[in-house]
C-alpha cells in the first residue's frame, strides 16, 4: 500500500540494493545458461561441446555476446519500424519484473552498524529479501506472465514475414491455453497457504507435516504433500509450454517455421529475445521453487534470523532454481517436439480438466482437515 507505509531514505537504499542484486543475477543468467545448455547438450549427446574459448569453454558466451553486438542490425523494409524495435523489450519486461514479488531469502535483522561515529543502521530494522511484498503476489505473477504474449505477437506481426506470423500466432495461442492450467494449478497452492502473499506461501512450507519418533520429520513443501503432486506436475509441464521450451517450442520450430517469430531479427534485437527466453526460464524456476519446493527453506534446519541465516537460505534458493533450470535443459535435449494439435489437445482436454479436478481434491483435503 503506498499510503500507509512510512518510507525513509534507508528503505529506498535497501530497495535499490535488492533490485541491483536481483537484476545483476538475472542479467547474468543468460550467458551462464547458454554455456550450461551447450555443454549439457554435448554431455547428453556424447560430444565435447564448446571447449576452445576459456577453460571448459566458459568464455564462449561472452564471445557470442561480442558477436551479437558487432553484427549488423537489419530492419526489413516492410516491417512496422516502431513495433519491430519495441517488440524485444516487450518480451523482456515480464521476465524481469515477475521476480520482484518472489522472496529469495530469509528476512533478517540488520545489526547496528557504526561507521566513523555515525549510525548507519538503527537497531531492529528488518531486511526482507523481496523487492515488493504485495498481498496479491501470485496474481501479480500471472498478470505479468500474461503480458509475455505481446512480445512474441508483436515481433511476429511487425516483421511482416509469414513464418514470423505463423510462429507468433502459434506461440500466443499456446501461451494463452497453458496459462489457464498454470493459474488453476497454482490455485491449490494458495488454498493450502491461505494467502496470496508469497512470503506467506514460503512460511507455510517451512513447517513440517508430521513428526515421527521425534526425529523423522517431513518438510511441508508443497511437492511432498499427498494432495499437491498433481498440481505440481500440471504446473511444471505448463511452465515448459509457457516459456516456449522444448517439447513445446512451436513458436520457433526450426523444421517448420525457419525460426518462428524472430526469423527477421538480427544482432542485439535477436539477443534480447534470447535473453528473454532464458530469463523467463529462470523466473519460472524461481516461481516453481517458491510455490512447490519450499522457496528458500532448508529442510531440517532452522535458519537463524541473522545475516548468516539469510545467506544460507539465499544459497538454498539459488540451488533449487539452478536445479530446476538444469531440468529445463535436460528435458530439452531428451524429449522430441510434439505435434501442434497434440499440444493444444493436451492443454485443453487433459490439463485443464485435471487442474480443476485437482482444486476439488485439494479443497476436499483441506475441508477434511488432512492438510
Amino acid at each position, binding site marked *: 500500500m*503506498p499510503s500507509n507505509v512510512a518510507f525513509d531514505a534507508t528503505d529506498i537504499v535497501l530497495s535499490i540494493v535488492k533490485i541491483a542484486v536481483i537484476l545483476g543475477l538475472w542479467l547474468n543468467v543468460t550467458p551462464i545458461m547458454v554455456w550450461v545448455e551447450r555443454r549439457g547438450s554435448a554431455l547428453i549427446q556424447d560430444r565435447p561441446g564448446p571447449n576452445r574459448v576459456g577453460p571448459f569453454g566458459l568464455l564462449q558466451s561472452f564471445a557470442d555476446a561480442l558477436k551479437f553486438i558487432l553484427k549488423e542490425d537489419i530492419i526489413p523494409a516492410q516491417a512496422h519500424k516502431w513495433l519491430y524495435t519495441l517488440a524485444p523489450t516487450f518480451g523482456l519486461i515480464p521476465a524481469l519484473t515477475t521476480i520482484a514479488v518472489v522472496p529469495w531469502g530469509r528476512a533478517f535483522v540488520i545489526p547496528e552498524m557504526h561507521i566513523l561515529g555515525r549510525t548507519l543502521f538503527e537497531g531492529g530494522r528488518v531486511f526482507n529479501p523481496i523487492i515488493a511484498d504485495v498481498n496479491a503476489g501470485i496474481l501479480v505473477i500471472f498478470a505479468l506472465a*500474461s503480458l509475455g504474449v505481446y512480445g512474441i*505477437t508483436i515481433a511476429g506481426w511487425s516483421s511482416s514475414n509469414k513464418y514470423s506470423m505463423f510462429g507468433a500466432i502459434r506461440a500466443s495461442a499456446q501461451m*494463452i491455453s497453458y496459462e489457464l492450467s498454470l493459474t488453476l494449478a497454482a490455485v491449490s497452492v494458495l488454498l493450502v497457504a491461505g494467502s496470496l502473499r508469497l512470503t506467506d506461501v514460503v512460511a507455510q512450507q517451512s513447517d513440517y507435516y508430521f513428526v515421527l519418533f521425534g526425529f523423522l520429520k517431513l518438510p511441508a513443501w508443497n511437492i511432498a504433500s499427498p494432495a499437491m503432486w498433481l498440481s505440481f506436475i500440471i504446473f511444471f509441464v505448463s511452465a515448459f509450454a509457457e516459456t516456449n521450451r522444448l517439447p513445446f517450442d512451436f513458436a520457433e520450430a526450426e523444421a517448420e517455421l525457419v525460426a518462428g517469430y524472430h526469423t527477421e531479427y538480427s544482432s542485439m534485437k535477436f539477443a534480447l529475445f534470447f535473453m528473454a527466453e532464458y530469463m523467463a526460464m529462470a523466473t519460472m524456476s524461481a516461481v516453481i521453487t517458491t510455490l512447490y519446493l519450499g522457496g528458500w527453506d532448508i529442510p531440517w534446519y532452522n535458519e537463524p534470523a541473522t545475516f548468516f541465516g539469510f545467506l544460507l537460505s539465499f544459497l538454498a534458493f539459488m540451488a533449487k532454481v539452478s536445479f530446476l533450470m538444469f531440468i529445463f535443459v535436460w528435458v530439452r535435449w531428451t524429449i522430441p517436439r510434439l505435434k501442434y494439435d497434440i499440444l493444444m489437445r493436451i492443454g485443453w482436454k487433459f490439463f485443464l480438466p485435471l487442474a480443476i479436478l485437482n482444486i476439488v481434491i485439494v479443497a476436499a483435503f483441506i475441508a477434511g482437515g488432512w492438510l
Partner: protein
Amino acid sequence: MEYAIFFLFAAVAVIFALVVILHRNPVVGALSLVASFFALAVMYVLLEAPFLAALQVIVYAGAIMVLFLFVIMLLNLSHAPEPSTRPIQQFLGYTSSAAFLIGLIYYISKYAVTTSPTGVFQADARTIGIRMFEAYVFPFEMVSILLLAAIVGALYLSGRALPAASSSEVGK
C-alpha cells in the same frame, strides 16, 4: 510522490487512449489500449485495490486485448485503409464529446466530494471473497453461466464462417 505517480500514469492513460481513437492502424490502437489499461491498473493500486489491479492486467491486458490483437491479425485489417467518416459526423462527434467532457468536469467539481477519505481501506482478496460469497452468490453463478453462454456463442458465430482449423483458435 503519490501525486507524481498519479499524474504521470494519468497522462499515460489519456495519451494512449487518444492514440486508440486517432491512429489509423488497429494494431497500434490495440497496443495503446493495453498501455492505457496498464496505467489504469496503477490507478487501482493507488486506490488501494491491488487485487483488482492484478485482475485488471490479467483480464484486460492478458486476455481481452490478446483476443482483439488476434482478430485484427487474423482478418489482416491493418492493410485495408479505413475510410474516414463524413466531416459533419467528425465535427459533431468532437464538439459534442468536448461539451460532454466540460459538463462532466463541471459537475464533478461542483458536486463531488473533494475531501480525502479517512482511515485505511482494506480491500484484499479475503475481504472481497467473503463479501462476494455472502451477498453476491447468485450474481456470481449467473456470471459463470453468462461466460459459458459467451463461449458457446463465440464458437458458433465464428465457427460457421471460418474453416474448422482457424475457428478453434478464434474461439479461445
